[in-house]
């Protein structure tokens, strides 16, 4: 009895019933909810088997596996690119990041700007054209005298000096001149320099300082995983979630 039923399900699905048989079967389906349920499950089972054994989905799973193991092995094998920071300082910075991470975990609640504002030192003098303002800006910045740094930065022709522009923006964030900082950073973020990720990072920190968490998150998620800011960004993101 059950077997006959399964055979008729299969015949119906394969369009192998005569018009009369078809009409009778559809009538039964309409009037018998238990039969309908059995038929639906039969149809779904067929669909499941098709999916399980189809070449497409087997190919997909294999390809996915390959991409997945590639992605994960790359993550563990490659070291982040370090640009022009001495390794000693880099280790110290890395340690700081780790400590900050641990500190966060034990501190619930929203993250604060102060947890992130350990800036790198500015170091753009040697290749600049002995410009007094650049020297001054750099020295004040590194001495954390941001107001004075801003005054010096303001006198510099920024065209083509993306690194100077970035540090000017950081300095402006420190003195809460967010609109000016944003304008400088937006400009960098739209360009193609190596500072694009840094720009997003500091846009995020500017938002964080203003407690604009949604905006902050928006910028953090734009930082790509090849950036040296990426680890910090993930920590911040996790804290924002």
């Amino acid at each position, binding site marked *: 009895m059950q077997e006959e039923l399964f055979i008729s399900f299969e015949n119906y699905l394969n369009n192998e019933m005569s018009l009369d048989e078809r009409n009778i079967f559809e009538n039964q389906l309409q009037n018998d909810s238990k039969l309908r349920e059995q038929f639906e499950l039969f149809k779904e089972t067929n669909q*499941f088997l098709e999916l399980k054994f189809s070449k497409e989905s087997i190919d997909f799973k294999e390809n996915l596996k390959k991409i997945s193991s590639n992605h994960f092995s790359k993550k563990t094998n490659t070291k982040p690119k370090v640009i022009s920071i001495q390794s000693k300082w880099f280790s110290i910075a890395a340690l700081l990041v780790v400590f900050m991470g641990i500190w966060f975990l034990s501190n619930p609640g929203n993250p604060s700007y102060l947890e992130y504002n350990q800036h790198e030192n500015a170091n753009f003098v040697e290749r600049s054209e002995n410009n007094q303002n650049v020297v001054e800006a750099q020295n004040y910045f590194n001495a954390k005298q941001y107001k004075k740094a801003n005054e010096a930065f303001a006198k510099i022709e920024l065209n083509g000096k993306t690194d100077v522009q970035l540090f000017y923006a950081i300095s402006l964030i420190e003195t809460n001149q967010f609109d000016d900082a944003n304008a400088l950073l937006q400009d960098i973020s739209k360009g193609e320099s190596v500072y694009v990720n840094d720009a997003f990072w500091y846009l995020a920190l500017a938002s964080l300082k203003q407690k604009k968490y949604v905006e902050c998150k928006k910028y953090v998620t734009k930082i790509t995983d090849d950036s040296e800011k990426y680890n910090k960004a993930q920590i911040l993101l996790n804290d924002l979630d």
Partner: protein
Amino acid sequence: MVSKKLHQDQIYIEGLLNNNSSIIETIYKKFAPKVINHIKMNSGNADEEQDVIQEVLIAIYNQAKTKGLALTCPFDAYFFLLCKRKWLNELKKSSNKEVTIKDENVSIDKDVEKLAMETEVQDEKQLLFDEMFQKLGEKCQEVLKLSFITKTMEEVAAKMNVTYAYVRKKKSICTGQLTELIQQSKRYSSLKY
């Protein structure tokens, strides 16, 4: 009901459906780090991160394939929610691991929640089907497998050295048996909607 507007992130769903490697790689590059970070922070290791992401992407693929998934929210939110819940379930399953994820009072977008729920139900079904398939007799498993990987039932019959009529009948009956196993399982009733 007015159909909602498709989200531009539907490209990721299409990419999965078409087995488009560069889109799948982009998904890993763009969306996996957040998941990895979440699992790491909640006592998971690299293998577990890899498994969760892979399983969720298969679940999304299956959902798109069988139900025609139309994304009405950002992929990121949908994908992250699925991964997060899958990891939570894993933690709950392994009793030797303490479940440390706190119940976040973050409101989840309705669309995201709905899509994720549908995908999870379908994924659960898929797992149940798979498990029940293994309970079928060897002959049934073989007939069903061959019926779906071989182009025509005539070829299946030739491969198995039986008549066409026999293969047709056997396939219907084996599919039917599989539906019975599914219906008898306790989990089935909770998956019906």
